[in-house]
């Protein structure tokens, strides 16, 4: 009797995901005027986050012509690179908010974000291949009423809950957001 091992059918094992629910991390964005309305922008690379579609990561290092350490084009995130869409765990979120919230042009927005695809977990957060906001919190203490309403209305176009946060300091915002998100 010839015994056929179960894995010898087609040679390659099927690609089985490790998780079937998205990872949820925290982020800070800027609410910026994109010419049509208010969009979310990444803080570092100023990437605009699309509405109704995931943001897909790409590595930008190979695009910089004078970058001294040229890299091969690769999928993002890569293990030997810092590319990917970033999100952090709650204790690290404080590092990305300014001490006082007296901003003018750039309005920080705090929120939770879904992460999926290839995900690299680090001690303080994640680098992901795909991401979309899960919920948004807009600190409105330094915004005029009209501007606050306009920004929140525009951000509702992402189709996720948008809530106002009234605290005027970074610590206060995080306390309020934590209780709202609980």
């Amino acid at each position: 009797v010839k015994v056929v091992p179960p894995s010898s059918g087609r040679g390659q094992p099927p690609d089985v995901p490790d998780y079937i629910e998205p990872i949820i991390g925290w982020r800070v964005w800027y609410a910026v005027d994109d010419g049509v309305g208010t969009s979310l922008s990444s803080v570092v690379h100023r990437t605009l986050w699309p509405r109704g579609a995931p943001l897909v990561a790409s590595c930008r290092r190979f695009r910089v012509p004078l970058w001294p350490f040229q890299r091969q084009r690769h999928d993002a995130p890569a293990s030997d690179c810092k590319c990917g869409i970033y999100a952090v765990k709650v204790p690290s979120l404080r590092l990305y908010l300014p001490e006082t919230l007296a901003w003018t042009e750039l309005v920080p927005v705090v929120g939770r974000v879904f992460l999926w695809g290839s995900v690299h977990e680090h001690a303080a957060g994640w680098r992901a291949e795909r991401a979309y906001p899960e919920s948004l919190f807009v600190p409105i203490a330094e915004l005029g009423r009209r501007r606050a309403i306009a920004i929140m209305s525009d951000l509702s176009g992402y189709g996720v809950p948008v809530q106002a946060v009234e605290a005027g300091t970074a610590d206060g915002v995080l306390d309020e957001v934590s209780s709202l998100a609980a």
Partner: protein
Amino acid sequence: MELGKPERVYTVEPIRDPVPLTRPDETPNEPERRPEPEKVPVENAPMRTGPVRRP
């Protein structure tokens, strides 16, 4: 942005799309139209079998 020491890599394939179905950027749906009656080519139209009246 520093995330600290890398710990592990995994693949996440959500069974439900994390992107909400409601997409306000899209144009609103057009009002439903009544389906037009199917047009039958003359050569395929059923032949009249009843009596033919004289004009």
